[in-house]
């Protein structure tokens, strides 16, 4: 009876968390590269219920009286909570912006040998000194390819992270003492950084920065969402540079482990486009509606239990009712 109160209250709390997750998905419906969260509900651990102090019960003729033995009645779940918010890494649709610093990432990587999902991410980092390479623990992963160039000429994200190249160094697009690619920066389908040499009109590789830092993350659910569009590796999660992953892929192909490449040709960067959020507004709004109704139902249960408790407290045993 009293237990039911707490069970329903835990239900209301869990639904509030789910509503927060849904609201955050909806809030980021126009955020490039946003991956929606899915709230996962989990029941509290079960408990076993027993009848105890049996000797006080009626003594039935012909049946043994198991004095002092507890009789198991069954199981009881005592509530629910939201255990995790799982990011969904499905590809969002892409939209044209025609801006040279907008780069959409498209990937369709095959799962690895253990059947774990693999996804491609850009590497970004906050750096004290942009001339030094980023430490591995500072590297963050993002799908948001909506960048700009800061006052020092480095490629940065909207939240001030430096976009990294394959060697984990910040990418200098406009070098006051060297090459300034400016708006003429070209990014190939493989993520190679190029600019058009004004003198010859040919495409040249950006000095010191041959390629964007693309990483293959195996089992991306192990990434921790930090907000500001970035994810962090934690625990056993694995990320490897794209060229390393490609080399491994080629080796596995040569060894005959599988017949079609799992990585090569299954990804592309598209300059002048952005990947939009993969939030489905319909699904989110209907999710909110069902949250609302479940919340209401839990409230009714609490109110009902409260009503019966009130009867027990105020009406039972009243003299001269």
């Amino acid at each position, binding site marked *: 009876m009293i237990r039911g109160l707490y069970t329903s209250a835990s239900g*209301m709390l869990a639904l*509030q*968390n789910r*509503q*927060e*997750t*849904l*609201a*955050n998905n*909806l*809030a*980021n*419906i*126009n*955020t*490039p590269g*946003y991956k929606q*969260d899915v709230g*996962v509900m989990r029941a*509290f*651990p079960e408990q076993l219920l027993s009848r105890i102090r049996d000797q006080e019960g009626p003594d039935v003729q012909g049946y043994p009286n198991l004095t002092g033995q507890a009789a198991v009645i069954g199981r009881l779940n005592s509530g629910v*909570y939201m*255990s*995790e*918010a*799982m990011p969904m890494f499905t590809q969002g649709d892409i939209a044209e*912006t*025609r*801006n040279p*610093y907008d780069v959409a990432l498209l990937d369709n990587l095959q799962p690895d040998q253990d059947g774990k999902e693999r996804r491609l991410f850009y590497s970004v980092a906050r750096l004290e000194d942009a001339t030094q390479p980023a430490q591995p623990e500072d590297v963050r992963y993002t799908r*948001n390819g*909506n960048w*700009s*160039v*800061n*006052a020092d*000429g480095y490629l940065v994200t*909207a*939240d001030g992270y430096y976009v990294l190249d394959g060697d984990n160094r910040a990418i200098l697009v406009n070098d006051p003492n060297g090459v300034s690619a*400016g708006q003429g920066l070209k990014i190939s389908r493989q993520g190679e950084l190029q600019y058009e040499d*004004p003198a010859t009109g040919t495409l040249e590789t950006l000095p010191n920065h041959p390629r964007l830092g693309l990483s293959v993350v195996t089992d991306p*659910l192990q990434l*921790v*969402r*930090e*907000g*500001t*569009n970035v994810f962090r590796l*934690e625990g056993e999660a694995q990320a490897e540079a794209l060229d390393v992953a490609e080399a491994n892929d080629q080796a596995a192909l040569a060894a005959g482990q599988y017949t079609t490449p799992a990585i090569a040709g299954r990804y592309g960067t598209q300059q002048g486009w952005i990947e939009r959020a993969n939030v489905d*507004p319909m699904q*989110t709004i209907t999710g*909110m*509606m069902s*949250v*609302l109704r479940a*919340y*209401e139902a839990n*409230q009714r249960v609490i*109110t009902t239990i*409260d009503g019966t408790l009130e009867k027990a407290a105020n009406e039972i045993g009243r003299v001269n009712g």
Partner: protein
Amino acid sequence: MQSLNISTAAMRGIQQALDNTSNNLSNLDTPGYKRRVASFSELLSGSMNEQPAVDNQNRNTPAGLRIGSGARLGLTKLDMGQGSIKQTDVPTDVAIEGDGYFLVTKKIKDATGAVIQEENRLTRDGAFQIEYDDDEGGYVLHTPSGYILTDDNGVPFVLPEPVRNIQISKEGVLNADGTEYGRIGVWKVDNPDQLQQVGQNLFDAEIASGDNPSTKYTNVLAEGSATLRQGALETSNVNMMEEMSQLVNIQRAYQLNSRAIGISDEMMSIANSLRSR
């Protein structure tokens, strides 16, 4: 109820994006105007760890429950796309074809009328007018907001009376009545996103008073990657259809978030009426 704050934050950002779109639309006919594109960015997410110990098994994600806190307007980027060229046949209208900006200056005076400094501004707007200027002691070409066009050393053009037959070549050489008065400077900016927009279709050139602009920018007319066209204006690069579809998109996002606020509010009222029957 964090969800109220989440949706409110998003709506604030959406409102700013709406402001940006309406500014683009209102400058549909401004010569040389470059549209801005608003984009959103996610806010921080918080992590909660109020979970029973048994929960650490059979999880898909690392321990803890992470819930974001909404979205904001991340940045507005200049779209440097070329606007179309509109023939006007006015001799003092000049359009730039290619990257680059005109440098225009204005003298700032104190109360006594002495010149304190020169303000340097960049613009793509080539709709100049000829007018007599007391400070320069001659006729100058100035923008609608009163800034004077300069040559390839950052010095204002001054033409004597009478001004007739202005000719501006593709390379920027300015002739009046057969006399050459110098070359117009068109300056290339590597990173236009970093320019400060100061209104009146101008950007702050960030050049100290009296400095030669070539210390900071390159003259693209001299190197030949841009050309001028006399008697024409560059229209704004705002595309009505694109802005309208953006408007619809933003409005829908606004409605969805306001719906979310409504639902969160209803949940609060349900929690409020726990004891009332």
